[in-house]
């Protein structure tokens, strides 16, 4: 069942295409993280969903209602902004109350001076106050309700912004990098809280971020957007272990994936050092250029022996729980990054010659246009279907 469905959304600004036909579905209560480098169109997509920006083509269906012709105020979509966008002249309580005041009170009831004289106003205002207090208690900001945004810390403001977005029980929840203005410690803590809040609210949530750690750790599914196109939408594990496009592989993963140029051999396999991988379900002409990718944790280092490609260590980074080696392959002069446990890295030093052993089962092959080509090590044809079927 889908709650929110986007079909072929297109948008360009003065001739520059920003969104090139983005389509996806979100289930009810699903948390989708939209990641991508800055300028990839993810914030534009969010603004179109919110109704702050029009789309050139496509449709947005919420249930069976087309949202595009509906003005922002009537979409019942809530959004948390990167800057929080709290009203600076209102207290936290008033900020949280604004969406309720605009929806639950009639135009006449909202008027200053005359409003309180309207029938039913007192009751409605009391109900709003109660809702605001409940929301504040659940976000643990009830002691801040009388403060203005200027008197609050970043974390507190962020909670007020969350409260303002959630208090009216929206049917879709959008977040535009809500954690990027917090310091690193608070950010990790706030991740868990947002996931918890989302679980309680149970509405589809779109979370825009450029931080892959946030996307992978929080979301049910991760959507990778690059250059205005949605390249892959899948669970965090699939995004990491089975990227569909070279850009996805390049963007997700820290340190970045190693990419090496290669060519398809005469027998249709691809060789890299002493490893050969075969393509399956796809045929690529012999001699075509491809790119081989392998994540840094799937390269093993040996100081001697015949296994692997000879390389030299340029630089070593010690990160506590892991060690990052920056090496250069002797044969082709390309850099290679290796992630090791501190035990494995013991005794290594910059300038040392080593051999890098690539685990063939974890090689990705990408076509020239960036698309992933299903591949399997030639030596182990049995694992062919299970690995990438």
């Amino acid at each position, binding site marked *: 069942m889908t709650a929110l469905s986007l079909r072929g959304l297109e948008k360009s600004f003065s001739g520059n295409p920003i969104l090139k036909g983005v389509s996806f579905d979100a289930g009810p209560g699903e948390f989708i993280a939209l990641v991508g480098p800055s300028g990839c169109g993810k914030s534009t997509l969010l603004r179109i969903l*919110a*109704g*702050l920006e029009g789309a050139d083509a496509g449709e947005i269906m919420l249930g069976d209602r087309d949202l595009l012709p509906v003005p*922002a105020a009537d979409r019942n979509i809530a959004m948390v902004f990167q800057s929080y*966008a709290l*009203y600076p002249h209102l207290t936290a309580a008033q900020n949280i109350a*604004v*969406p309720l005041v605009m929806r639950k009170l009639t135009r006449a009831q909202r008027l200053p001076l005359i409003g309180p004289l309207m029938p039913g106003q007192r009751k409605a205002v009391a109900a709003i106050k109660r809702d605001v207090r409940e929301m504040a208690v659940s976000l643990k900001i009830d002691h801040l309700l009388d403060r203005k945004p200027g008197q609050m810390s970043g974390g507190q403001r962020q909670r007020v912004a969350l409260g*303002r977005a959630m208090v009216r029980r929206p049917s879709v929840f959008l977040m535009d990098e809500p954690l990027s203005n917090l310091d690193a410690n608070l950010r990790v803590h706030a991740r868990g809280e947002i996931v918890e809040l989302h679980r309680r609210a149970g509405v589809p949530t779109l979370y825009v971020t450029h931080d892959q750690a946030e996307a992978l750790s929080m979301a049910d599914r991760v959507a990778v957007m690059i250059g205005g196109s949605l390249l892959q939408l899948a669970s965090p594990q699939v995004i990491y272990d089975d990227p569909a496009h070279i850009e996805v592989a390049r963007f997700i993963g820290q340190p970045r994936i190693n990419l090496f140029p290669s060519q398809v051999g005469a027998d249709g396999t691809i060789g890299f050092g002493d490893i050969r991988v075969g393509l399956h379900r796809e045929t690529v002409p012999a001699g075509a250029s491809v790119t081989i990718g392998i994540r840094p944790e799937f390269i093993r280092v040996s100081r001697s022996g015949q296994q692997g490609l000879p390389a030299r260590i340029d630089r070593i980074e010690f990160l506590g729980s892991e060690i990052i080696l920056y090496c250069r392959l002797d044969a082709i002069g390309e850099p290679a990054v290796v992630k090791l446990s501190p035990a494995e890295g013991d005794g290594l030093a910059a300038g040392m010659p080593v051999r890098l052993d690539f685990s063939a089962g974890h090689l990705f092959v990408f076509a020239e246009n960036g698309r992933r080509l299903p591949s399997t090590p030639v030596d182990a044809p049995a694992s062919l279907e299970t690995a990438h079927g």
Partner: protein
Amino acid sequence: MNASAFTLGRAVRLSILIFGAVIFLAPYVFMISTAGKAQSDIFSSSLSLIPQHWSYVANFTKALTRVSMTTLLWNGVVVCALIFVFQVMIAIPCAYAMAKLKFRAARLMMVLVMLGLLVPIHATALPLYVAFDRLAVLNSYFALVAPFTISVFGIFLFLQFFRAIPDDLIHAARLDGMSELGIIGRVIVPNAWPAITAFAIFSVVAHWNDLYWPLIVVSNQAYATPPLGLLYFRAAEAGDDYGALMAATLIITTPLVAAFLLAQKRFVEGITMTGLKG
């Protein structure tokens, strides 16, 4: 740190400032002094600041009785208030639209605003006068107020201010369910008080002191603004009675001086904020 230490540079700076202040204050001080002098003092050959015969009571009585000072002040208040209210009511939505909404005529409007800033009232005075005469609306509050209700200066000032308001705030307001007018009333205006105060000072000072336009459209004393009233007072009533004239002037300038002293801090803020001089 010793604040009272007088270095040479500090002494020079202070004396220059004091000299400037004396030059600017001198006419006003002289006015206060003259307002208390009898006719014989004023035309005596010696120049003294302290009146020899204290005539404040006599001069102020004359000033208050010979022309209807309350009418003048009331007219001044009504005209300034009406002008200011209409200017704000027109300039704020206009500046908001130009700063935050995307529409096709935005560039054209910007050009028109710039053009409006360049054209002085003296250029449009004659056509306006003829039009008001044909409409038979000379000698009315309408004639005094109408030409100033659209203040391009106000639009420009608010435009600069609104551009600094983050777009996200406007977006959040839209998502919270506000109409564009609701955004102006609930988000823009409450956050624009510094700009509104600054503009109020510019507008009120300019129109309270304006003689040019009232002189053109008003010939009936009942609609005279304070500066115009002074003119009548001098021409018809006082003749060469400068003591009474200065007393009347004192009465008319007092509200602005008092307002300035009360809002001195804001006034300075306003000028620094807009980067403009009045």
